[in-house]
């Protein structure tokens, strides 16, 4: 380790205001300089020379901090709508056709599958499974294909990741299909194993994809989002926290009501309580997020 680096780096940053950004850059440079100095020392330079040369190669730190990243002046004239218009990307005709085909496959598969399972159509179990397979494939292709398209705001997903989302959707949708067949009674109870396997594998895969997902917004979208005025929850974190507490209370009460309903009037009333709870949460959200800031003492 080369102690001269630290002294020389401090000198290079002398007179620069130590914003978090500048501090960040300095720490990044420190590790790189040490690696470079080690390389120079291995090539035969004395530690002193190595440190000095590594720093000299750096050039002017000040110029680097001046030009970035907030130097670009805010162009207030560009509102979001005009930006969207300028960067508009038209969907490819081929994709539109394919999307229609995938959707038809999904709708036909689900409709005929349910009719078969409900006994309206004279279909045995095999064709029913095949129909739900068709539907799941249609839904999954729709997801995968859409993700690999360039849109106005997003870059296309790389092929292998889009394929991952395809597979996760396929497993999840097929699993739900098996669950539906068991629920409708056309498939014996052992079908639940397939349903559970599909859904669990899908959840695992989705979690993995979600956790490893990196940015795919276009630069202009990010810029536009940055210039968005902060909403009330960002300006007043305590309001956001209050909303969180209210939400928890609402759902706690909702589930209590659901339990009461199930044990008194019957389970089919449970969704009503659920819907009421959800509506209440949305109303509270609207009240708290979009309230105009009133001066104190209203």
């Amino acid at each position: 380790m080369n102690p001269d680096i630290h002294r020389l780096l401090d000198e290079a940053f002398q007179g620069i205001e130590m914003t978090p950004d500048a501090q960040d850059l300095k720490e990044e440079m420190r590790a790189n300089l040490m690696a470079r100095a080690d390389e120079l020392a291995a090539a035969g330079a004395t530690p002193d020379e190595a440190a000095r040369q590594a720093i000299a190669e750096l050039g002017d730190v000040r110029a680097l901090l001046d030009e970035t990243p907030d130097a670009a002046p805010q162009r207030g004239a560009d509102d979001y709508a005009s930006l969207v218009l300028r960067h508009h990307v038209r969907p490819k005709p081929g994709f539109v056709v394919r999307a229609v085909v995938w959707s038809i496959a999904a709708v036909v598969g689900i409709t005929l599958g349910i009719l078969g399972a409900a006994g309206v159509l004279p279909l045995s179990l095999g064709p029913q499974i095949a129909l739900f397979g068709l539907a799941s494939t249609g839904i999954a292709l729709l997801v995968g294909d859409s993700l690999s398209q360039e849109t106005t705001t997003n870059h296309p997903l790389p092929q292998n990741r889009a394929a991952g989302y395809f597979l996760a959707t396929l497993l999840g949708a097929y699993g739900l299909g098996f669950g539906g067949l068991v629920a409708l009674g056309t498939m014996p109870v052992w079908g639940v194993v397939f349903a559970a396997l599909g859904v669990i594998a899908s959840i695992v895969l989705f979690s993995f994809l979600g956790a490893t997902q990196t940015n795919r917004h276009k630069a202009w979208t990010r810029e536009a989002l940055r210039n968005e005025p902060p909403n009330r929850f960002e300006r007043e974190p305590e309001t956001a926290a209050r909303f969180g507490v209210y939400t928890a209370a609402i759902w706690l009460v909702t589930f209590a009501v659901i339990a009461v309903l199930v044990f008194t009037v019957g389970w089919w009333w449970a969704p009503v309580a659920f819907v009421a709870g959800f509506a209440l949460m949305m109303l509270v959200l609207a009240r708290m997020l979009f309230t105009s800031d009133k001066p104190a003492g209203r």
Partner: protein
Amino acid sequence: MTQDDAFAADLLRGHTDTIVLGVLRRGDAYGFEIYKAIRDATGGQHEIKEATLYATYRRLEKDGLVESYWGDESQGGRRKYYRITDAGRAVFRGNVAAWTATRRIIDALLDVKESQQ
């Protein structure tokens, strides 16, 4: 630096963003690794200045084409690693396609023969 070197350095510098994305496509790397990868690829004849690279990292990160995270080195300075994002991969593919097309045009305009040394 000769006239040829200056021309090559200029060309190289003009594509710094794409070159850095290309290096990161092979895997996450910190500043010095990226610098070295570029220098080694040119056979040590050229290098892109570190100052240029730092400016590039900041621009790429602002545009969401790379993400950064700090390594957990126990000794010495902590390294700031960069990772390419899906947006970065898409931009890289687009730039490579543009480069291939442009190279063909310039080759035609400069009358470069494939076999010519």
